[in-house]
């Protein structure tokens, strides 16, 4: 079911356009400035800030840190000369040596780069440098070697709750106001590959080949038309696991994930287009296993059962933050396929699709036609038709991009 009926959504779009065009000035790309870093006995360094947020990459370079993201793109470990700390995407927590502290805002991926609130420099950095740190408007002053350490507390209900909050407002206001408005990085996921053939048509068409062709065409169109970065989860005929696909999205800091599939069923007469996004609610068991994993990530060993309510909140929020945007995306994809290609509309639905789970960005899965239907199989094999599908999908992503730029689609605001 669509979260917002289409007619209502269109009205909402129209109202949004009128409102934005009259009230807001032209978009700005965010104010870029620098913090000067003074370290005793070392030359001055610079850290870049954008819209009041610290650019993580500039911190890594300034302090010669090593950084590694976990395979799912959820946790970021930073290692300096005197220690290490862990940050969680969309979370305000900093963890080090079993202790935790809360920053004024979360670690966030926006527009293809990771950013932090400035107080990371005073709260998190000492864990890495072993130096005290004080920050004023435009300068960060570090103490002598050994002058500082990580000031954290043992994880408790408060810090756990802070980690739940993160999904509610994962994009800070300042970035919404001043950050890049449209899409920066899109990940396209051609389904199956290698030993996973996917659906097979009666004359031998395989889904894995078909969707790779369409994804490659779509990638070229997006790069040329929108000038954005496009990453494919596979670029040839090989197997990629479902979790890896999402991880590629997360690790590339994508702000859109589209999985491209071809459809098939037991009856040959069935045809048309379908688009899916992840279901909002899952089972309690799923929620608790997710929460357990979360607690492991935080190093929290809470007694079981005492935080069932918080766990439920956590799960709902994790999905809510993206599901609203994903429903817009799925609706736009389906609209373009149905209207531009004059195909049968089999609807937008929610479904428990494994490849969309764990995507920390709006995500949808599109079925570009039934290869179990012999007539459609013939069409799908035509390069011209594959190009039409890629064009319709391009239009849909452009619609979404425009929706973001105009503020009709709100990021991270359930």
């Amino acid at each position, binding site marked *: *079911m669509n979260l917002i009926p289409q007619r209502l959504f269109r009205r909402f779009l129209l109202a949004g356009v009128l409102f934005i065009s009259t009230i807001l000035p032209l978009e700005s790309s965010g104010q870029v400035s620098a913090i000067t870093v003074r370290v005793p006995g070392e030359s001055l360094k610079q850290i870049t800030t954008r819209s009041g947020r610290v650019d993580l990459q500039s911190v890594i370079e300034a302090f010669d840190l090593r950084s590694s993201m976990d395979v799912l793109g959820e946790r970021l470990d930073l290692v300096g000369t005197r220690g290490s700390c862990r940050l969680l995407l969309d979370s305000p927590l900093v963890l080090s040596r079993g202790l935790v502290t809360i920053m004024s805002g979360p670690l966030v991926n926006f527009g293809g780069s990771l950013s932090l609130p400035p107080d990371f420099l005073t709260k998190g950095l000492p864990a890495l440098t072993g130096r005290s740190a004080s920050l004023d408007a435009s300068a960060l002053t570090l103490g002598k070697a050994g002058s500082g350490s990580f000031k954290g507390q043992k994880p408790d209900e408060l810090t756990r709750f802070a980690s739940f909050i993160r999904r509610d407002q994962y994009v800070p206001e300042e970035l919404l106001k001043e950050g890049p408005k449209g899409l920066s990085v899109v990940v396209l996921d051609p*389904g*199956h590959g290698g030993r*996973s053939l*996917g*659906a*097979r048509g009666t004359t031998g068409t395989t*889904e894995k080949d078909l969707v790779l062709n369409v994804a490659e065409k779509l990638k070229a169109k997006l790069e040329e038309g929108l000038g954005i970065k496009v990453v494919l989860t596979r670029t040839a005929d090989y197997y990629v696991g*479902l979790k890896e696909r999402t991880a590629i999205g997360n690790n590339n800091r994508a702000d859109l994930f589209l999985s491209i*599939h*071809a*459809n*098939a*069923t*037991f*009856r040959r007469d*069935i045809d048309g287009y*379908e688009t*899916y996004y992840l*279901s*909002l*609610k899952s*089972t309690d*068991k*799923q929620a608790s*296993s997710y929460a357990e994993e979360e607690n492991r990530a935080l190093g929290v060993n809470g007694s079981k059962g005492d935080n069932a309510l918080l766990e439920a909140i956590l799960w709902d929020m994790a999905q809510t933050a993206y599901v609203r945007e994903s429903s817009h995306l799925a609706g736009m994809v389906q609209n373009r396929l149905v209207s531009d290609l004059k195909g049968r509309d*089999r*609807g937008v*639905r*929610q*479904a*428990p*699709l*494994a*490849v969309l*789970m764990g995507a920390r960005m709006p995500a949808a*899965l599109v*079925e570009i036609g*039934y290869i*179990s239907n012999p007539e459609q199989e013939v069409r799908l094999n035509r390069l011209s038709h594959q190009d039409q599908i890629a064009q319709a999908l391009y239009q849909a992503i452009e619609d979404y991009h425009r929706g973001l730029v105009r503020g009709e689609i709100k990021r991270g605001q359930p």
Partner: protein
Amino acid sequence: MKKNLKAAVILVLTVGAVYLFIRFTMSGRGISPPGEEGLSRPVVSAPQTREMDLFFADATGRRLSIERREISGDNTEDLLKRVVEELIKGPVDEDRMRILPESALVRAVFTREQTVWVDLGGAIQDEHPGGAWTEVLAVYSIVNTLTENFPGVSYVQILINGRESETFAGHVDISIPLENRIQLLAGDWE
């Protein structure tokens, strides 16, 4: 004398019938309570025949659709297994669509507390046509059929070749025990 004998025979038959009836209805009510041995303990119950609501797809492949069928089994677990086998046989009515491949095999069915494990052979993955929604309906034809017809069953864990699998046939998450989704009769997930 003859009359007394006749009365005695009738009495014995009546008591026997009442006993069997009680056993039959009790065992038919659901899964036996779990024993400490858990999985290895077979569910002991009498042979039974019951009318079951089997969930197939409708002709459009958009939603689940119920077909009623009488099914017999030696005991509750056997009945659970036969029900899944009937799903694999497919619908009789042409207005419905099969949703599991014909060549699929039920390797085993076992129960513990409110969960049924359904262990299927690999053909259910290999021979599945491959559409995401067809896969959603396939998974929930099994889950809904078992949870609707056996009130003691709340969760269904599907195994492929004896192991937990990330997905049913490439799309739908079956890594955890699944619950009834009766809304799929209307074609909706939520």
